[in-house]
């Protein structure tokens, strides 16, 4: 009902902020490249050194693009979960969806090597990793959904999510104990989270998954809005509960699972960004919230990645640690300031 026009200014600001953080992200890295050269390289003119062009176009640009996809996609899945579960604390990490993806990845990376120790990793393609992680997240999501049907208490749901996290990490520990050093290392690097190591094919696959997730969310806008009243009201408004719930779950599972597969389990973005977004966009209309959380998530992820990329040094901090360091205080701050979290 509120004119979308009144948010146009905020959207322009957010888009500018995204552009700026993108530039900042691209101009920082282990190799120091003057800002002027970054700009001229981006504009299609050559930078002073050909290697700089190569670094910017073949390494930093895909990384920035991945960050935007990961941040935007995770934030969107967080928004969908908060509405679907009627719970302000819902998010891919809290509800154990990321743990499910981890389990899928762990079973693939370490489990297969256990079963067939002699086979090389080469047959574990990117697609199979994405599929394994997505299946893992879907399974957990389905179980959480079934439990949510029976347990109306929102606290119980969160505790169940935490328990899933514990179970998963236990299974992962067992797998780790029996697996080879090589595959264990591979899994641990995956679990640090990274937006930098994606090949063009992987990036395209990730983009395709995120786009499908976005499309499914856009189709669900009307039912998402109706779910804000509760399921019985949504039903009385003509929403087909089964169909729209399934669509939203598939969108969430694809987004959280697909992203976790490629970028590792990244904490807090999905939970914190929707709440941060509501600080500026004071509306519950998903037509506005969906693009807003995605822009916001993209910005946050770019900034976190810039932080992770220690300036002028070759070392990169695990992105998962950075998002937790940024995201957890945000959640605490929101809780303290508003006393009660709303969605």
């Amino acid at each position: 009902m509120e004119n979308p026009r009144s948010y146009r200014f905020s959207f322009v600001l957010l888009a500018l902020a995204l552009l700026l953080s993108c530039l900042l992200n691209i101009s920082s890295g282990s190799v120091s490249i003057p800002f002027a050269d970054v700009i001229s390289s981006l504009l299609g003119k050559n930078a002073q050194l050909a290697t700089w062009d190569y670094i910017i176009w073949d390494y930093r640009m895909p990384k920035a693009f991945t960050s935007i996809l990961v941040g935007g996609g995770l934030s969107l899945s967080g928004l969908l979960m908060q509405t679907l579960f009627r719970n302000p604390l819902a998010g891919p990490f809290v509800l154990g969806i990321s743990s499910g993806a981890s389990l899928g990845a762990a079973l693939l990376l370490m489990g297969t090597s256990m079963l067939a120790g002699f086979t090389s990793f080469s047959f574990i393609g990117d697609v199979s990793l994405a599929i394994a992680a997505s299946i893992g997240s879907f399974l957990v999501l389905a179980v959480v959904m079934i439990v949510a049907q029976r347990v109306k208490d929102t606290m119980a749901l969160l505790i169940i999510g935490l328990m899933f996290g514990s179970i998963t990490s236990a299974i992962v520990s067992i797998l780790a104990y029996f697996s080879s050093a090589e595959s264990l290392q591979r899994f641990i690097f995956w679990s640090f989270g990274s937006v930098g190591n994606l090949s063009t094919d992987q990036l395209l696959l990730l983009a395709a998954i995120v786009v499908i997730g976005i499309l499914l969310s856009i189709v669900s806008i009307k039912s998402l809005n109706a779910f804000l009243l509760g399921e019985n009201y949504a039903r009385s408004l003509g929403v087909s509960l089964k169909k729209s719930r399934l669509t939203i779950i598939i969108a969430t599972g694809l987004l959280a699972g697909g992203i976790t597969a490629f970028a590792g389990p990244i904490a807090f973005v999905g939970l914190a960004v929707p709440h941060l977004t509501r600080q500026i966009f004071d509306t519950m209309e998903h037509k506005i919230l969906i693009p807003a959380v995605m822009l916001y998530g993209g910005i946050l992820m770019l900034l976190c990645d810039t932080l992770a990329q220690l300036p002028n040094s070759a070392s990169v901090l695990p992105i998962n640690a950075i998002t937790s360091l940024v995201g957890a205080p945000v959640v605490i701050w929101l809780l303290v300031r508003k006393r009660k979290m709303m969605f």
Partner: protein
Amino acid sequence: MADGNRNILSVQDLNIGYDSKAVAKHISFELEAGSLCGVVGINGIGKSTLLRTLGGFQPKLSGKVVLHQQILENHTSSSLSKKLSVVLTEQPASKNLTVQELIALGRQPYTNWLGSLSSNDKEKIQESLDAFLLEELRHRKCHELSDGQLQRVLVARAMAQDTPLILLDEPTTHLDLYHKVQILKMLQELAHNKQKTILFTTHEIDLAIQLCDRILILDGKNNPFGNPCELIEQKHFDHLFPSEMVQFDAKTGTYKVNK
């Protein structure tokens, strides 16, 4: 229009309950357009179950419900959403909605796939805001409202859904006397001025007697239905409650505590 066609809702020998365990049996009544009907009865007699059954939230056990000349079960969910709207006892899941946003959700059955509001939708929303004195509250969040205000918002949302039948489950609970009367008066105006058929469950028997055009008494036996005066004359209110505690006074239409 033929006489029979004025019936918005017709219920014939309806049995309701859960998994073949009947809660209430042999309920029959008919409601015309523009009538306000209260459903009264003691706790656990099946008032809410009746409302949930009529609203399509749970299947009936047996009997027949005809809504707008069509069997209730034969309505598709989208057609049903244009025929009946509900006000439930449950609170809206998100109280971060503004009054206006919440009422606008009532227009969902009529909006396109994105839920964009047409000028007609906006008119209906404005009408609902005006009818329930919510103009000044329109940009408030639901968590900032008092119980009485929130109840008005929920009823206004049902009005914006613009259905011939509105079902309300205990719209007056948690309200003080003034706000109880206010809500019921507004429902009466809505029924009479806009020709809506309104069915609500309530424990306010004295108010229902004064304001309703029809009353359905769920007593576990005959479930009498009629206009309040007839029901008083036929002494149907006298045995609604165990008589050692309260006694119905037919002159005033109220219950008196036995001294």
